[in-house]
């Protein structure tokens, strides 16, 4: 295992730039510009970059790539400020030894935080290279240009590597290095293809599930038959009789390692275990609404006008959790799909009581996460089994394990009450979310403040993060209720929304979506309904219009067309942004219409894709995306917020055509009751 210090000893000549985050004392870390690599490596750095003598630029960040395409957008940040070709930039991401500490990749923070940080790093290097060139050429520095990875002056031209002339130059980020304004971007802001696409379409990219190590064993874990059940007794003799099988038994943790995957399956099946059932579970998925309220901290709120229910749903990343762990003495190396590689490092260090420096976690770009890969479950299992087996172990979760033992988007209940004047102005407003979460709780409209609350309650299942967090639930409830309020005063839902906000950015996205959709002109078509929803979350403004058809008889819902407008400041990569928005609409359709985890008596009843329906090609509406580019506003992240508009837009469209107001997600797993 190499350490950071070893790494810097081995890195070749060229320039290294460190980024010390705001608020840290640069002097404490060595400060300023330094020569050579012999000094102590700064501890508090959030990114670094190396420009090698051959011009290769390697950037180190603790952020990870989970399909949101940050590998591309972060490369663009560096290419933009360094004036270097995108192809010369190589990103090392989410490696706890090579990359600086990072809390994790969540909350749409990569674009608002790491993206500008890497621009500063690259701008500092660019300015330093210009300094070097001016000195070497005895040139007027202001006459220098940097283009295509070269510094240019009159007839002079030198690549970045040539300028460093074999020296090793180390420096901290300079706050004086000028950043390129968005209006002058030449790389950023332009549609840019995914930098890792070639290795993906050829099947060469190694996902966590694909990592193989010499002598690697296959790990399996014996899970209880229901949540909370305790191991009473077990007999491993039949499993141990299978050639090459190791059985791990530590308390309630029982696991298998075998040299072939089928032997691991057979050994797992051969374990004979008796379980003490947990006390009866307090709830099942058919009985959740009253559960959250009855278990709310601080008791019940006064009766509300309307109530909206949110079901538990699963992330279903196509690549289930997976990890490979390999011990060397008391040090462990782990490859795993995680949004928090440094968090996984802490989990492992804590479990094995070893220093974090003895744990090296790497995160190969993973087969998606959607908020579902914050924890180190598979990594810990792999490391526990590998430690006992004395060989590297891969622990790849099955789909059923992924849909049972991971965590879920929290369910909840949301209560809303309001009064509206006859001319459509909201006079009073209260909004209470039980259990599902506080994200997106506050109305972006002009409403009296102080009556929006999140109430913790008791989880019925293991809960965790999910793309957009509770902003999906809160936008569903709020935007459905806004529709109900509009109808209560016989106003057009679009007009009602515009009437209750003076926020220019919100009005712009609403108007842009409505215009493209043709809201004002839409004619009543038999069986077709039209709905609109809008919102604001994590720096992004969104408006969504949906056209649905409801079959009669039967009540099957087909979403025919979706127009979504989005504004998140200056657009970093319009192609990537469109792709994220389209994907969020598709994924959001599942939670809107039919996805829900069914459970009873401590068991997940639909723990496989044959029983848990996710959106497919046939569910796809015609999707149109309207991007609003605000070059005057810093870029915000966009991986999450585009998901929040689809559920209320569809619910409102269903009401428009059927007169049936659906107040529970999913809206219509078995169709709308239109008898």
């Amino acid at each position: 295992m190499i350490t950071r210090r070893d790494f810097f000893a081995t890195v070749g000549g060229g320039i290294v730039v460190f980024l010390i985050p705001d608020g840290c004392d640069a002097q404490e870390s060595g400060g300023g510009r330094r020569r050579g690599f012999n000094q102590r490596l700064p501890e508090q750095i959030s990114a670094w970059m190396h420009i090698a003598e051959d011009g290769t630029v390697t950037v180190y960040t603790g952020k990870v790539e989970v399909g949101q395409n940050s590998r591309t957008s972060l490369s663009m940040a560096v290419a933009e400020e360094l004036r270097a070709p995108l192809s010369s930039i190589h990103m090392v991401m989410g490696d706890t030894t090579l990359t600086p500490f990072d809390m994790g990749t969540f909350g749409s923070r990569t674009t608002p935080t790491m993206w500008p940080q890497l621009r500063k790093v690259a701008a500092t290097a660019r300015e330093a290279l210009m300094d070097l060139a001016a000195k070497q050429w005895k040139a007027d520095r202001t006459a220098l240009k940097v283009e295509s990875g070269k510094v240019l002056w009159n007839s002079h031209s030198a690549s970045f590597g040539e300028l460093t002339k074999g020296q090793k130059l180390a420096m901290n980020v300079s706050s004086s290095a000028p950043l390129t304004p968005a209006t002058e971007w030449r790389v950023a802001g332009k549609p840019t293809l995914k930098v890792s696409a070639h290795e993906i379409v050829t099947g060469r990219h190694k996902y966590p599930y694909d990592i193989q190590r010499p002598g690697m064993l296959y790990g399996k874990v014996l899970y209880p038959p229901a949540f909370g059940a305790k191991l009473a007794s077990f007999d491993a003799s039949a499993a141990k009789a299978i050639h090459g099988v190791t059985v791990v038994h530590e308390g309630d943790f029982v696991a298998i390692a075998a040299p072939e995957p089928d032997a691991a399956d057979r050994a797992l099946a051969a374990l004979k275990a008796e379980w003490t059932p947990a006390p009866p579970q307090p709830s099942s998925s058919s009985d959740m609404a009253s559960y959250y309220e009855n278990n709310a901290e601080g008791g019940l709120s006064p009766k509300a006008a309307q109530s909206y229910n949110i079901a538990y749903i699963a992330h279903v990343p196509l690549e289930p959790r997976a990890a490979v762990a390999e011990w060397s003495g008391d040090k462990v190396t782990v490859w795993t799909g995680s949004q928090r590689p440094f968090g996984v490092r802490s989990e492992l260090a804590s479990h094995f009581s070893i220093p974090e420096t003895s744990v090296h976690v790497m995160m190969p770009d993973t087969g998606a996460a959607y908020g579902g890969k914050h924890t180190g479950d598979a990594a810990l299992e792999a490391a526990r089994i590998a430690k006992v087996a004395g060989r590297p172990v891969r622990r790849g979760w099955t789909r059923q394990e992924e849909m049972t033992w991971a965590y879920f988007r929290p369910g909840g209940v949301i209560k809303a009450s309001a009064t509206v004047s006859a001319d459509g102005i909201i006079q009073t407003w209260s909004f209470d979310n039980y259990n599902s979460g506080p994200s997106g709780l506050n109305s972006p409209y002009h409403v009296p403040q102080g009556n929006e609350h999140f109430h913790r309650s008791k989880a019925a299942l293991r809960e965790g993060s999910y793309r957009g967090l509770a902003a999906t639930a809160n936008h569903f409830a709020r935007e459905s209720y806004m529709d109900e309020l509009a109808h209560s005063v016989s106003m057009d839902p679009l007009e009602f929304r515009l009437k209750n906000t003076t926020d220019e950015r919100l009005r712009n996205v609403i108007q842009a979506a409505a215009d493209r959709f043709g809201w004002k002109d839409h004619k009543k078509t038999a069986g077709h309904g039209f709905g609109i929803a809008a919102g604001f979350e994590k720096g992004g403004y969104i408006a969504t219009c949906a056209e649905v058809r409801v079959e009669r008889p039967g009540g099957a819902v087909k979403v025919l067309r979706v127009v979504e407008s989005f504004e998140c400041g200056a657009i970093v990569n319009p192609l990537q942004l469109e792709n994220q928005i389209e994907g969020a609409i598709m994924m959001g359709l599942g939670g809107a219409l039919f996805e829900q985890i069914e459970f009873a008596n401590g068991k997940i009843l639909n723990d496989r894709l044959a029983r848990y329906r996710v959106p497919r090609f046939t569910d796809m509406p015609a999707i149109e995306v309207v991007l609003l580019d605000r070059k005057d506003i810093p870029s915000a992240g966009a991986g999450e917020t585009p998901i929040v508009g689809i559920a209320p837009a569809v619910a409102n469209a269903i009401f428009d055509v059927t007169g049936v107001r659906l107040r529970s997600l999913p809206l219509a797993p078995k169709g709308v009751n239109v008898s």
Partner: protein
Amino acid sequence: MELEVNGTRRRINVDAGRSLLSVLRDDLNLTGTKYGCGEGQCAACTVLLDGVPTRSCLARVGSVGKKRVMTIEGLAHDGHLHHVQQAFIDEDALQCGYCTGGMILGAVALLRENPKPTDAEIVQSMNGHICRCGTYPRIIRAIHAAARKGGRA
């Protein structure tokens, strides 16, 4: 037993009851074929058997016989991408990319049967493939783009 994979005969010593998916990934190190569900519901494990798209998680290796197996690793020739692969890149028809290998092989098989499919034909043919990132509209565009280029099938 012997298996012809991507134009090469491979001798393997495995139980005939093993899934083709596991043998490809774990014995032949062809990890471009993905595990997604193990029940034929997601098609991330799609390979072509004599050109026919097949869910390798359900297929037993002993049932392959003399059929030629093509995995995503075998699609490009001499470093030149198949036009379906190139179209997926050009149309940005992927996010995490975990479904992409299976999608591309499904699309290759579709275009062999139907060189100029309509939207509806693509949707019907590809509906067994799940892209949880939701790039379906882009995949459809990529398949149309590949169909326009035609060429080597």
